[in-house]
């Protein structure tokens, strides 16, 4: 039996894939960049969706991981470019795969650290503490002058992916889209697994989970770390897309935006972040073309979604989420 949500997901995936090719054919290269941006933001939000959608962990600090991913890409690539060795004589790298691995490890460790402290609390405390830790990373990036401080860091030539030319917009879109599909696959796998069952149950009823003998904290912590890693990976791609990384990737507006993407699309839904990112980027470029104050209208749309359409886009199209 093919559910309606499955069909909608397929349509969204194909749509996102088709748009850049059509844009390329009709000579609209900027649209390719928009589609790439959608894919990357959707991946970042899919990472957050592990913690927020499945685990109910409202992290208001995921920009920390997104930005750390960006900075890993920027720092490794700037060392490889300039030839200055980093610590341990490591010379940096321009290989995306190595950069992604490094970013995932660094963000995983940071996530572990932040998670261990933040997950001692819950509810509003958790929201505020994750926000505060992200601010800590943000201010650190601003006040640490070695990598550009407030001005950020440029990536002169986009990092490389084996076998392809990432400077071609359509090719880079392909890399980002591929990463998104893998990310969505991982999300679905986690959601359906034993771990995912425990994680979703922890969201619904922590006491219930503990009284069958599953300790909630390790489950939450693992989800938080996995979530941080995936969001960091998206951060690497985002830095490569813009060929620039700055503290704004770490700012709390970014954290807010990632949550917004999930809510616009539909919380906990596999393609929620994709639908959310599409809507967000389309609103941004459509309204942005009309008025400089497009965020005013974004605010209104967001407010209306929260107050009146809590299921987001996927919820509107596919109905309520079901847990078999």
């Amino acid at each position: 039996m093919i559910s309606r949500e499955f069909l909608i997901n397929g349509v969204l995936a194909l749509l996102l894939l088709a748009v850049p090719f059509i844009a390329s054919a009709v000579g609209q290269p900027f649209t390719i960049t928009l589609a790439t941006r959608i894919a990357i933001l959707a991946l970042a939000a899919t990472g957050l969706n592990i913690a927020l959608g499945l685990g109910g962990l409202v992290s208001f600090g995921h920009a920390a991981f997104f930005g750390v991913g960006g900075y890993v890409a920027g720092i490794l690539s700037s060392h490889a470019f300039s030839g200055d060795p980093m610590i341990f004589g490591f010379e940096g790298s321009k290989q995306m795969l190595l950069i992604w691995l490094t970013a995932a490890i660094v963000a995983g460790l940071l996530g572990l650290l932040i998670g261990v402290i933040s997950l001692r609390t819950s509810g509003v405390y958790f929201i505020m503490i994750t926000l505060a830790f992200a601010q800590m990373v943000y201010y650190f990036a601003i006040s640490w002058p070695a990598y550009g401080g407030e001005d950020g860091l440029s990536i002169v030539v986009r990092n490389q992916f084996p076998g392809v030319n990432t400077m071609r917009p359509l090719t880079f879109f392909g890399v980002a889209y591929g990463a998104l599909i893998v990310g969505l696959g991982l999300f679905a796998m986690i959601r359906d697994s034993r771990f995912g069952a425990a994680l979703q149950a922890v969201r619904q009823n922590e006491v219930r989970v503990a009284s069958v003998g599953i300790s909630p904290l390790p489950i939450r912590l693992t989800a938080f770390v996995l979530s941080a890693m995936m969001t960091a990976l998206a951060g690497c791609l985002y830095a490569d897309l813009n060929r620039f990384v700055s503290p704004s990737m770490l700012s709390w507006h970014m954290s807010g935006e990632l949550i917004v993407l999930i809510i616009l699309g539909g919380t906990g839904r596999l393609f929620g972040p994709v639908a959310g990112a599409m809507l967000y980027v389309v609103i941004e470029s459509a309204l942005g073309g009309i008025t400089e104050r497009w965020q005013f209208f974004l605010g209104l749309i967001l407010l209306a979604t929260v107050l009146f359409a809590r299921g987001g886009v996927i919820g509107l199209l596919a109905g309520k989420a079901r847990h078999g």
Partner: protein
Amino acid sequence: MTFSLVLEQLLNGVQLGVMLFLMAAGLTLIFGVMGLINLAHGSLYMVGAFACAVVAAATGSFWLGLAASLAFAAAAGALMEVVVIRRLYGRDHLDQVLATFALILIFSEGTRWVFGSFPLYLDIPQLLQGAVPLPGGTAYPLYRLAIIVTGGLVAIGLTLLISRTRLGMRIRAGESDREMIAALGVDIRTLYTLVFALGSALAGLAGAMVGALQSVQVGMGEPILILAFVVIVIGGIGSIKGALIGALLVGVVDTMGRFLLPQIVGLFMSSAQAGPVGGAIASMLIYLLMAAILAIKPRGLFPAQA
């Protein structure tokens, strides 16, 4: 490093702490009574600052501006509560975060629409210009001292309001048992709007007072909002006492950290490196403080409800 320099920095820390208290008191009161997390509290701070700057510029009187900041912030808060916030009380925190995040976008962009992107400036009133001599020979700006005094008065007033008045009794009842106060026949909707307006007025007051020290611009409320979050997390959400102690702690630690850490780091490495390294550590100090406190007391120093 002289004694008077340390004293000056200490006073700056207290002054920052007092500002944070004005913000944190409103946030924590609103959370304590209504169970709501309001990200747009920083926008009310901004509204206060703009109202003060505009009215002061039009009338030439800082004091009228200050009154306007209270009135406008309270009115904006009450409006916000009636139109949006009221629908969020029963919702989960995620909805509250998002809706109030949306309010920030609306307030910030709306303000930019009206006033443009250029900052406004607000002068320190004639009466409070000048400086007071400190023991040790330096002088401290009178205006900053006035801020500290104002904050102290607000703290006392707020404590009296909550412990001694009818409104305060209702607020306390609202914190412990929402159904009970409805049963007592208190109009809970009006009470919530009043509490929200009160918190907003405090934020507006803080914005107006800081507006004369810094420039008045869109986004000015956000850094202080996040610091205020740190304050109430440290102090214990819902506790006014916690907000006061947390605010002073954060204000003093942050200010003294920025002042002392580069010099301490300078003892271990060359002065060229010491500045940035010390500065970077100092910028993280209050978050480390928060982490340390939470590691010991996950619900803050003065948890409001056991």
